[in-house]
């Protein structure tokens, strides 16, 4: 029992001690440069790490002397040459020295090769494999055209990683991850959905001198719906692109309440005609505002600067897909319900009143920065 408790306590402290991280994990530094005479590769490995692999500390006193390192140079050189291989380029040892860095002393080995890789050389890296699971080689490779790239070499992985995709500031989102974000954003963005619904509620009806008549065919409903959705899509795509590419920025203290206002106005129009039936124009004008709202969501996702346009396109296509899903379901249901004589009273007026109320509350929330609704 006592042992069990000690174990438990160790774990409790483990958790406790977690944030107090210190020093750094093990890294080796590689510099690969090419010249007319061939390839030069310099590899810096910490003596601490080499000691783990090669037992450099011959007398085991915990102090590495220059004598101990010197007599171990041949085994260090062959260990490093074995652990760093460049496809098509046999490496010959050329120079060696010691370097002091902030976390200790490093052995710096220089190798040369007569090869001339035409593109970025492929590095097979296996230093400290099986000895330290968090060890990485940080390679800076000078390319022919004067540019240079940084690669992170993981001894347990076959392919080098591009660090530009590994920084937490710009998290990796593989493949079409931004498409998914776009779909999720519109499905979870209640304000955009509510605005769309306000526009769609009367789409299955015809306004005749102040009263509503159900449309005869699905086609009669589908045409205005397509117009509204296209206008809304065009408009928010324009402002989303402008805002995301930093060309036109509006502060969110203005945009967020403005979106709430668009809901109130769209709903009000269903009860008392404000816009004289030009719903596509309204959808376009208000869509411009919603586009800035989408851009706000997008900025929280930290788009990769490198593949910016691609990510933006994905996000937008995702938005449209999500929007189409909502429209398909909503229009289908409304179309079925339209024949009910109570549709105008319950769905159009009731629904619009509810939307106005929610929109108004959102407006208050977003201007006064208070929380009134659970959404």
């Amino acid at each position, binding site marked *: 029992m006592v042992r069990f408790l000690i174990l438990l306590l160790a774990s409790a402290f483990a*958790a*406790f*001690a977690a*944030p107090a991280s210190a*020093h*750094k994990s093990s890294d080796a530094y590689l510099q690969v440069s090419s010249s007319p005479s061939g390839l030069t590769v310099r590899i810096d490995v910490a003596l601490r790490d080499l000691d783990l692999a090669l037992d450099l500390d011959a007398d085991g006193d915990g*102090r590495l002397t220059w004598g101990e390192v010197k007599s171990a140079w041949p085994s260090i050189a062959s260990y490093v040459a074995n652990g760093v291989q460049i496809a098509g380029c046999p490496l010959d040892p050329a120079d060696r020295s010691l370097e002091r860095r902030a976390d200790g002393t490093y052995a710096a080995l220089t190798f040369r090769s007569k090869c001339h890789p035409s593109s970025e050389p492929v590095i097979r890296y296996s230093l400290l494999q099986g000895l*330290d699971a968090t060890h990485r080689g940080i390679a800076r490779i000078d390319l022919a055209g004067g540019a240079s790239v940084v690669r992170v070499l993981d001894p347990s992985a076959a392919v080098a990683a591009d660090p*530009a995709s590994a920084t937490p500031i710009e998290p990796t989102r593989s493949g079409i991850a931004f498409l998914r974000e776009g779909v999720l954003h519109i499905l979870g963005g209640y304000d955009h959905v509510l605005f769309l619904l306000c526009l769609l509620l009367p789409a299955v009806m015809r306004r005749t001198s102040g009263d509503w008549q159900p449309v005869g065919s699905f086609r009669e409903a589908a045409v205005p719906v397509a117009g509204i959705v296209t206008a809304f899509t065009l408009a928010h795509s324009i402002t989303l692109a402008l805002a995301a590419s930093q060309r036109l920025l509006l*502060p969110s203290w203005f945009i967020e309440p403005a979106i709430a206002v668009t809901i109130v106005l769209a709903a009000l129009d269903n009860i008392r005609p404000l816009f004289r039936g030009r719903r596509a124009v309204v959808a376009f004008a208000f869509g411009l505002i919603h586009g800035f709202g989408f851009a706000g969501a997008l900025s929280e996702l930290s788009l990769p600067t490198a593949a910016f346009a691609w990510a933006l396109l994905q996000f937008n296509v995702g938005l449209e897909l999500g929007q189409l899903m909502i429209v398909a379901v909503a229009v289908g249901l409304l179309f079925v319900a339209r024949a009910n004589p109570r549709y105008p009273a319950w769905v159009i007026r009731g629904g619009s009143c509810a939307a106005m109320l929610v929109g108004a509350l959102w407006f208050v929330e977003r201007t006064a920065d208070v929380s009134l609704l659970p959404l």
Partner: protein
Amino acid sequence: MKVMIRFLALLGLAWGLLGAVAAAAAPVVPRDDTEVVEVLPAATASRAEERRWRREWTAHRGDTRIATAAARRLLGRAREEGDPRFAGRALAALGPWPDPDRAPNDVLLMQATIEQYLHDFDAAAAKLELLARRAPSDAQAWLTLATVRRVQGRYAESDAACLALGNIADRVYATACLAENDGLRGRVDAARTGLARLIAAPGLAVETAGWLLTTLAELEARAGNPASAEAAYRAALSQHDDGYTRISFADFLLERGRPADVLTELRDQPRSDAVLLRLAIAGTRAGSRNGARDASEMRERIALANERPDARVLHAREQAMFALRVEADPQRALALAQANVRQQREPVDLLVLVQSARAAGDAEALREADRLRREIGLVDRRFEASL
């Protein structure tokens, strides 16, 4: 404009990453063979003994018992010395079991504990949940899971793990576990009563007493009772002087505007990154002789650590604090603090986020931070001054 600035800050970080690889390295030219060129970290066990068990492990790589013992020993050294290299070695000791579904329970628990130390919380939680399903009476798995979920700001899941722990282990752990979550949610009175009852119990091990008192101290600090918090911190340190409590106490003293006391409290601590960071902040504020030296050493360590891209995940909290409190660069601090809360969501992480947003004058980020705080369910009086 804010978006623009943040965008430029990101570009700057990416650029810094490329440039940092050329970081400082000075040649060493030894005079003679006896010159010591590197001191290997002091081992609790002698070097000979260390090599003996390393050889033993190499010879029996598939042996669960030898591998987990080696990993536990290495992780212990990582904690003692604040050196994550040992955690990487500990993880490598368990390398023969890469597939969690096939790893024995002991191996799985150890892997998760190391991943937690390395701030890979998602991976740790996945392994612990697998283990808890497989061996529901494994108290340590539940306790560690409760902690990981708490650090992630997922209090409900942490509660569930605490409750499961209560069914199988000594009640003191389950009670403390739940009390800590209660305290984070602002149910201060209940949490305080629960902890006080545990602390008053006779025959408590000093480590346990210290742990409970530190939990109480942090609770009082969040509840806005600095006098009680300080008393609890001092009681905790008199019971059991551990690095975590010292750091937590130092953060508390910095919040209270007492940098000189921080310098006293941390004077004899090993200069891990966490300790050095607080020394740099306190030294800068107090205008002490060593402040500038500590700050420049910390700056150098950060530059070196950042040569590895994922370093910002591991050190984002510390780097955000440094950018905010030493470099007075709130834009950069905000970007780092925002990256940090994707991983860890302890009160201190939200505090540095809120303070950075405020210093940067970014109302949107401030609102976002408050939204996150509400989403987590954290109640902390210290935020009221900042929000």
